[in-house]
Structure formats: structure tokens, C-alpha cells
């Protein structure tokens, strides 16, 4: 294990190149120390004291202990871990963009505002929505914004009884959580055996209490909801609105538009379809798009274009019915610039190919695994951009679980697919290869799965004990104990060591 940065610390070790020149002769306390004294900290914050070389070494070495898209195949279902083009990073990090203060005169921000305005337009065209606000800072905040707009819509119409949001049981956890945060009651809708929403149940659930339905299509089960038009009719007929969880847009981008399917609101995960990085947990961005009737409620700020072609922020003064502000400034603008750059590289043709090749790769990989004897969750269905295999047979026969397969894949140099989600399918792996992976990589993944199943037959304990030596410096850890972590939470270096 790489020691903690605190372990490298020695009292009084200083990186003086990062000490700013101070005006006073002595920098140990400010000039007006007396006036400030009741408000001052009693002793310096117990941060580590390390040299710059030690910092560089420590964090460089830590980075090497990560799997990432830049180093490994990362078929994490529902997460669209595709290639993050380096140029998108480089252009977003241009000093002109980085150094601009958010509250600076708008005359200095025409460059960034032009990009954001065009991004609003492009996302609108791509999703078939009337208007877009870019401000939500991740998918979940986009969901919140969408549901809040649905609430505002009903409220504005005086329709106070709509207190329920319907959500299929396969939905991502953020959907119910976001709905709850908006004050709604969540009602689950079951899935039928083919992976479609159970229409009978839906029909039974809708009514005057229905504010809306949250859905993604293709669903998190990796299949296209064939009755989407019918579903939209049912919900709309009951007076509810339709919310689209845009996490799965990679399956349809440039091919099918949520707006055409009847959705009223949508969020987009730019850190999925638009190839912005996931950064080991973010930042992402979750722009929201809406149909005409929800336009007045879009969160602010947005970017508007004046008659003379200049751009400016639109705020609550311009949009009096807005649900309001979601972030201190304009959202994760640096990430939006990356998405903009990506879209300009692909254009319409490139976007369409995203869906085409994401779908081709998923179906090919699924077919190969089926050929190799694995069982898919919905054998009768085409895959969308992702698909589910269930290892329930393997679990029964060899007592080797989906988690064991996942851990063993790491030894082969593959990040594991999403495990145990959606919860409907037992011992499942949700596999999303994305369009940026080559056929050779998919073939090698199939070979690894077959090899692991072979091991499960002949030496199941070996698989249960995985990982053994994952390809990181030093060979990495054996399986880490989640239970211990939760039972005796150790969430920071103890104050005595690095703390107070």
C-alpha cells in the first residue's frame, strides 16, 4: 500500500515556493491581529507538511493504482464509460476560459457564452426539446430540476392534488430520491417479463394524483421500451407529464429523440453521452430540456442572445416563473465546454454513429456471450447500448456469484460491469461496452468471461477469493472488506495523528 500523505509529514517541512510575499515584515499574523483576535484560529490547521516532490510522487503513484478509461476497458453498465477526447480537456483548460471570474462584466465573456448558447441549441435539436437550461450540475440535479418544473407547472395551473410521481421498479435510485426531494410521493410501477413497463399496472396507477412518470428509454434493463407512445398517451391523458432520464441517451443520440417520444422534460448526462470525463466521481453536468409548456420554469441562469448578436445571462428577472437557481453561479461550465467541444467534433453524423456503434457493440458482445453459454436477462430482446446477463445458474451450480465474476475480471485487466443493478434481475451484470471500444477488446472480454466460468467449474474458491493480482503497481489488494468498513467506520485520519 502507498502510505498516507500524512505519513510523509514532518513538522516544519515547507514548500516555500508557495508562500506568497507578505507586506508586513513578519507574516505570522495579520496587521490588524488585535481586531481579528476573537475570530482567529488557535493553532495552524494540522495539514500534512510534505515537500513538493513527495506530493508529486505520492499522488502520481496513487493515480497508477486506478483503473480508468485511459488505461482499461470499463464496461460499467449505465455509466457510458467511453473515450474522453483529450482535446476537449485541452480546449476547456485554455487560460482565457479558466481565468474568467463568474461575475465579471459580460463583455469579457462572449467567448464562453457563445459556446454555451450554441450548446443549448444543439442539445435542443438533438433531443427534440423546445428549450434547454445547462445549469444542473449532474444527472440527479437535472432530475430534481425536471421534477420541480413539473411541480411548478401543476402549481401554476392551480392543480394542487398531483402529489405522486410514478417510477418503474427498474429505475435508477436517483429518480425516486429526486422526486422525494421535490416533495412528491413515489409510486413504483412493475416491469413485465419482457422488460417493458407493465401497462396494466401503469393504467391502474395513473389518476388525478399523478404529477408525472419518470422513465428512461432504453430502460436501465438495456431494452427499448416498445410501448413508449402508448405510455405517453396514458400519462398525458391522466394529466401527468413525462420525464426522461437521459442517462441512456448514448443508445439513441442522433437516432431517436425523446421529444418525439412524447417526453415533456429530460435531463442529459454530459458525462455519459457527451464524453466528458467522470473524474473518479465527477464533476459532470446535467442540462435539462423541456417541451414548450415547461419552458417558463427552466432553472436559471440560461444564456440568451440579444438582437445585436451578443450573449448574456438570463436570470430570474428575465424568467419570472423559473424554478430558480441551482448553483451559486452558472453550473459546471468547464464541463459544459468539454461537451460543446465534443459535439462540434461529431456533428450530426458523428452523433448518429454514436448510437449506431454503441448499439452494434452491445448486441455483438451480448451475442458472443450467449454463444459462449451465458444467459441474458431478456433473451428475446435486442440489446440497446447495454444489456444484462444473469449468472444465477453459475451461482447455483458453482456457488460463484456475480460479484466473484466481477472481482475476477479485474485480474484480467477489465473493470467490472455494474453488479446487482437493476435489482430485478438476480446475480446480474449490466454490461455497456460503448462505441469507442474495438471488436478485439470485446472479443478479449468474452474470452475472459469464458475463462472465469471455466475456473468456477474447476476451482471455484479461486474465483471467490479474487482479485489475486490486478495489474497495478505492486499487484494491488485482495478483496476489501466492505462489512468491516461499515461496521467500524474509519472515515479520516484520527485527529491525534493528522487532526486537531
Amino acid at each position: 500500500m502507498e502510505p498516507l500523505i500524512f505519513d510523509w509529514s514532518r513538522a516544519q517541512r515547507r514548500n516555500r515556493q508557495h508562500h506568497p510575499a507578505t507586506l508586513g515584515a513578519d507574516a505570522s499574523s495579520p496587521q490588524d491581529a488585535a481586531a481579528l483576535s476573537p475570530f482567529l484560529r488557535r493553532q495552524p490547521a494540522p495539514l500534512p507538511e510534505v515537500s513538493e516532490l513527495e506530493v508529486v510522487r505520492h499522488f502520481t503513484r496513487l493515480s497508477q493504482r486506478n483503473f480508468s478509461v485511459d488505461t482499461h476497458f470499463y464496461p460499467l453498465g449505465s455509466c457510458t464509460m467511453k473515450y474522453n477526447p483529450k482535446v476537449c480537456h485541452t480546449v476547456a483548460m485554455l487560460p482565457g476560459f479558466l481565468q474568467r471570474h463568474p461575475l465579471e462584466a459580460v463583455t469579457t465573456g462572449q467567448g464562453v457564452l457563445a459556446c454555451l448558447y450554441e450548446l443549448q441549441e444543439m442539445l435542443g435539436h438533438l433531443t427534440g426539446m423546445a428549450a434547454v437550461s445547462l445549469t444542473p450540475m449532474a444527472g440527479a440535479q437535472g432530475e430534481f430540476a425536471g421534477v420541480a418544473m413539473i411541480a411548478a407547472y401543476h402549481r401554476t395551473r392551480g392543480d394542487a392534488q398531483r402529489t405522486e410521481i410514478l417510477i418503474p421498479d427498474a429505475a435508477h435510485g436517483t429518480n425516486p430520491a429526486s422526486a422525494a426531494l421535490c416533495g412528491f410521493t413515489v409510486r413504483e410501477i412493475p416491469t413485465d417479463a419482457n422488460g417493458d413497463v407493465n401497462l396494466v399496472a401503469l393504467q391502474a396507477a395513473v389518476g388525478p394524483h399523478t404529477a408525472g412518470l419518470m422513465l428512461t428509454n432504453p430502460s436501465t434493463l438495456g431494452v427499448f421500451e416498445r410501448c413508449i407512445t402508448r405510455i405517453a398517451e396514458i400519462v398525458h391523458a391522466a394529466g401527468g407529464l413525462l420525464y426522461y432520464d437521459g442517462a441512456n441517451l448514448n443508445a439513441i443520440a442522433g437516432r431517436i429523440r425523446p421529444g418525439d417520444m412524447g417526453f415533456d422534460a429530460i435531463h442529459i448526462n454530459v458525462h455519459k453521452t457527451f464524453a466528458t470525463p467522470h473524474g473518479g466521481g465527477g464533476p459532470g453536468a446535467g442540462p435539462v430540456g423541456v417541451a414548450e409548456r415547461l419552458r417558463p420554469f427552466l432553472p436559471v441562469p440560461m444564456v440568451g442572445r440579444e438582437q445585436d448578436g451578443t450573449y448574456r445571462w438570463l436570470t430570474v428577472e428575465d424568467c419570472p416563473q423559473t424554478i430558480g437557481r441551482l448553483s451559486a453561479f452558472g453550473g459546471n461550465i468547464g464541463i459544459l465546454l468539454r461537451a460543446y467541444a465534443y459535439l462540434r467534433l461529431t456533428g450530426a453524423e458523428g452523433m448518429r454513429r454514436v448510437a449506431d456503434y454503441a448499439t452494434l457493440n452491445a448486441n455483438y458482445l451480448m451475442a458472443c456471450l450467449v454463444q459462449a453459454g451465458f444467459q441474458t436477462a431478456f433473451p428475446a430482446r435486442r440489446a440497446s447500448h447495454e444489456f444484462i446477463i444473469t449468472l444465477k445458474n453459475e451461482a447455483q451450480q458453482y456457488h460463484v456469484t456475480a460479484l466473484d465474476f466481477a472481482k475476477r475480471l479485474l485480474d484480467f485487466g477489465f473493470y467490472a460491469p455494474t453488479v446487482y443493478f437493476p435489482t430485478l434481475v438476480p446475480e446480474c451484470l449490466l454490461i455497456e461496452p460503448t462505441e469507442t471500444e474495438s471488436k478485439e477488446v470485446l472479443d478479449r472480454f468474452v474470452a475472459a468471461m469464458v475463462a472465469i466460468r471455466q475456473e468456477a467449474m474447476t476451482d471455484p474458491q479461486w474465483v471467490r477469493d479474487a482479485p489475486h493480482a490486478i495489474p497495478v503497481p505492486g499487484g494491488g489488494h485482495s478483496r476489501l472488506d466492505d462489512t468491516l468498513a461499515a461496521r467500524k467506520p474509519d472515515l479520516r485520519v484520527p485527529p491525534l495523528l493528522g487532526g486537531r
Partner: protein
Amino acid sequence: MATMPFIPHTSDDVHAMLALLGVDTQDTLFEEVPKELLCTDPLDLPAPLSEMALTRLMRERASQDAGLLCFTGAGAYEHHIPAAVWEIASRGEFYSAYTPYQAEASQGTLQVLYEYQSMMAALLTMDVVNASLYDGASALGEAILMAVRAQPACAKRVLLPATVHPHYRQVVQTLLAGLAIEVVSLPYCAQGGHTLPETLEAYPAHSFAALVIPQPNFFGILEEIHLLTDWAHRQGGLVIGLVNPLALGLLAPPGEWGSTGADIACGDGQPLGIPLSSGGPYFGFMGCKQALVRQLPGRIAGRTQDKQGETGFVLTLQTREQHIRRAKATSNICTNQGLLTVAATIYLSLLGPEGLRRTAVACHEHTLALAERLRQIPGVSIRFDRPFFHELVVQLPCSATHVLTRLAQHGISGGVSLAPYYAALPDTLLVCATEMRTPADCARLAHTLTTLLTEEG
């Protein structure tokens, strides 16, 4: 074939793959989609650009935004960022990884998160810190939700000083709109620019779940943190400290406010190595006392052991989170601002306690010096008479908006006009000078302002 960047398939590959699938064209793979939903016309997007053309376009756009001399703060500060911060944080292995679900293949990210949590806990003097929230404003919203959840015995009411950043208050309003939580705005002292402890007396015990205390507040003024904290605790309320983490190089950490410390601390991590970037991405941080940990929103990394007894790290306490608890989760947050905590962790490691303290001192001294210079301009005065830190409100003899426009023409970002936010503060400017603003820079602002005011007046 036309442009199809980033797709590795050769036509041989496509043929082989379709052959295995037993279909003729890729279109067949969309056969489950109702025909009428498939787009036939090309979308109305601009034609694809080569990387060369894109780079040129973006360089032109970025140069349009090129840097003013920045005296604007108001929640986002231009600090020096050591080159090593982003050289390392941008490394592909950090940049292109997902949330570390498979701990064994994600020790890099997880150990950084654990170190981040440790450093922030030390800086805030809090027991626990999460692995980040979106930004300072939404973190404040989450803190309020958390306090209300943690205080079932109290009224669903929160006391929010008017000295909190106006945008933060707007975000709180948006986030709480659907829930029956009352947000009470506390007035500020017209002379001192701080929250008067006296104004709290209207709120009896258990009539509110929490009191928010910003330090420094939006005006740069230092609040009476100790008095306010102890008062709130006496009334059975929790205290939410909203702080600038860089200021904590010098200022008392929330955990040391009053006799027992604030219960929750939150704020925006931007000052810790994050570029201004027109407003984001930044990151929100949140810490709390041990007793509140199960109410904490967001991801948390924990230290554990592997089968060989070796120390390692995992995401933990996930039963608070949406993917397990769904509608009953402590928050809907999923993707957070991970990469920025990597940057902040590197930043804090490079500065160390002494570097952070000196940076805070330099910021404050530059602002003191700036105040001194501005005060000498005829018609200009310092608006509030209380101690401030690193940011202050200046009274002008004319409209601040106009002055700002003129300053921008001279290449200076001169601060924020407060009139749009506070009716009682016409012709005022919120200005700040960080460690980046040399005495010469401050002289330039003072000089330009003098000239402008003379010309106008």
C-alpha cells in the same frame, strides 16, 4: 465514409459483427423501435469539425474572454494555483475513472478521498467530512435538509442571515421549494454589516431546527460566531457554519466556534486550487459531528482491510444513499465533484499549514492595503465598521454598475455592485484582493477609480 471520430470499427469489423448477429445492416438492430420514432432527416447540428479546426475555434473564443485584473470575489476567488495541482489531477487515471465502485481497482481515487476527508476534517475541525457535493450553495441546501432531518423535535424552520451570499439564498429557496421548511431571513446591522445577536431573540427554543452562520459573511464582515453558536445551542438548534476554507488558514474553524463548536460545516471548495472558470466546476464540502454522520448526504470513503489484513479503502455507509435507500435517501446526489477534491487535496498538501496560513494572511493584508488606498479617494468610504476578512464593501459617490463598466473598459474587474441584491446598499461595491493582487495592482485600481470618479464628477 464521412467523419466518424472515436469509432474504431473498420468495415471488416462491422461485417464480421453483423454476420455474427445474423443481420444485414445496423438499422436492423433498431427494429424494436417504432418506425415513426426513428429520425430520418439529419439533425440540425453544425457540420463536424476536425480537431484542428475545433482547437482554432476554441482558442479564438477563449481569447475573447481573456483576463481582467480581478478584484472580484463574492464567492469565487482568484488564488495562485501551484502548477503541480492540475498536472497531477488531470492525469488520465484520475480524470477518466468512474466513481470507485470496484474498490480494488480504484485505490487511487479512494485513498485520495480518504486523505481529502482527513484534511478537510482537520481544517474545519469536524469529525467527518463527505467526499464532496456540487457546490457551496447546494451544499448549504443539503446542510439545511440534514439539520431538519436530524431535529425531528424542532419546528421545520431555519434561520438564514441576510448576510449569506444572495445566490446561495436563492439556491436554498429552489431546493426547499417542494418541502414544508420555512426559511427565515435574519436582518443585518446597517452599521456593522453583521448579524446582530439581538435579532435572534424572537426565536424561542425548539422553534427552529438550525441557525446558519456565514464566516466571513457575504460582505467580508466577521460574524459573532461564538455568541451566535452558543445562543443557538442553548435554544436546542443546530449550527451550520458556512465558511471559506482558505480563510480557515487564519480564522477559527467551525468546530471551535462557541463552547462546543458548530454541528455542521459547509461551503465552497473553489479557493483550494480550483480555477475560476466562469463559475464552475467548483465543489461543495460538508462536515459534521460524529453524531450526525448517518444523516450526512453524499459519498464517503472509509478505511478497511483486505483478506490479507492489508489496509485499503472503500466507499462506505452507503445505506444513506439513493442507490440503496431510493426515495428515503439522505439526498439524491450520485455523481459529485470528485476530481476537484483530488485537486484540493493536492493543493492542501502543497501548501501545508504554513502555506495556507500565509496565503490567508497575504489575502487579508492586500485587502487591508486596498481599503486604505480606496478610503483616500474623495467620495469613497468603507461601508461597514466591523472587522472584515479579505473582502469588503466600499461606498461610492455614484452608481456602482456604471463604475464597473468603466473599470472593465480599463481591464479591471472591479467587484460586484450590491444594489441589485440589497436595496439599502445603493452605490456600493464588494471588492476583494487575494494574495495575487500585488500592491502595484491595488494602486492601479485606486488610480483608475480616482480618474474615473474625477472625470464623472
